[in-house]
């Protein structure tokens, strides 16, 4: 339903489509997405928040223990929800060049 609303209202913009595609290819962090898409942080973070609010993306904190073992802070990572995956599939169908624009993340075990 959310997807239908987004598509009908034209809110599934190029930016959102690119971010959804990046997330589907295994880029899970804000800076990762900025790096691979070339979008500025002022676009990526508010877009991620909006997608999370609309239920297309969910976020989780990485396990503290694992991060501590590797002597680094835990990160918040973003993943696509089921409606998010549907939105991503629709966006890819609508913008076919997206698949060629963003390379799959190395080590992505989707």
């Amino acid at each position: 339903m959310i997807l239908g609303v987004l598509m009908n209202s034209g809110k599934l913009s190029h930016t959102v489509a690119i971010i959804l595609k990046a997330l589907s290819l295994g880029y899970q962090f804000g800076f990762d997405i900025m790096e691979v898409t070339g979008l500025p942080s002022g676009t990526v973070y508010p877009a991620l928040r909006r997608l999370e609010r609309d239920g297309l993306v969910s976020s989780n904190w990485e396990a503290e223990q694992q991060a501590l073992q590797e002597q680094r802070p835990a990160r918040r990572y973003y993943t696509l929800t089921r409606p998010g995956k549907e939105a991503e599939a629709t966006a890819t169908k609508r913008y076919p060049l997206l698949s060629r624009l963003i390379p799959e993340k190395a080590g992505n075990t989707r």
Partner: protein
Amino acid sequence: MSERPAPLPTDRLNRLSQLDRWLLPVASNLIPRAKRSDWVKEWQAEFWYLRHGECNARRQRNRVVEILSLARGMVADAAWIGMNSLRESKRGSAQSCLVQLALSCVACGAVELFYEGSWRSLLNVFFRYFIGRFMLVALPAIFVAFATMPRRPRKCNRGQARVSGMLPDNARWNLFLTVKVGLSLILGFLVCVLTSLPVGKALGHNGDWIDVIVSTIVLTTSLRLALDDQKHRCQRCLRLLREPVRLGPPSYNLLDWNGTELVCADGHGSLQVPEMQGSWCWYDLWVEVDPSWHRSFSSETCP
């Protein structure tokens, strides 16, 4: 992820540290307290990864631009979260309803002032319209609206009158209703004047009948909307109830209860609206919940 990248040059490190040390606490003030620590932690983690070399050639070339872009992004992110939280907290509230009505009145007044050109001629039009047409329609419309006014939902658990602000709940309910109806009447009046201006200029006195019809429709509709809106508000915080859920199967012998339940987003209670309002007194019922239930109802606890 487990591989630690090479560190960055010192000047870039310093700039990033300044962002982390100075701008992050300032920007975090835009975030509501409940979400602040998570937001700061997220940005600190991202800065850590950036500081420890997760960068590409594009960034190496444009250090200052990159730092400025990051700063802008951080503030934009904080501002978005702050605005969104504010919008969520005000959505459907009594204040936002009154502000929207007042702003609509101001907008209509401004358009009419622009159309008429001067205050004096605008006031003249207002006076003529108010005495000549509006009063004729408004008084019967107000009478009909209040005669058929939806009954205030009964409280399931009647207790002592609660005081959740400066005024008791009942007084706040009535005050809000009065102000809302007043603003709706003013807005209705301004909309009627707005439509009558071009009609009057085009048709002269023949346009009077059209004005009366328009006034009747606008006033009746606006008053009905204002009164119906009141029916679906929380009796404690006056926020619009939401999440309508149908309850109970439709009964063959019409004796079992079935209808719709709406809840207050702040967790004050629920309104049960029966599918059929029969002569056997199936009125709307406001079920106020104990404060210990607030967390279960409230949207603030949702992830």
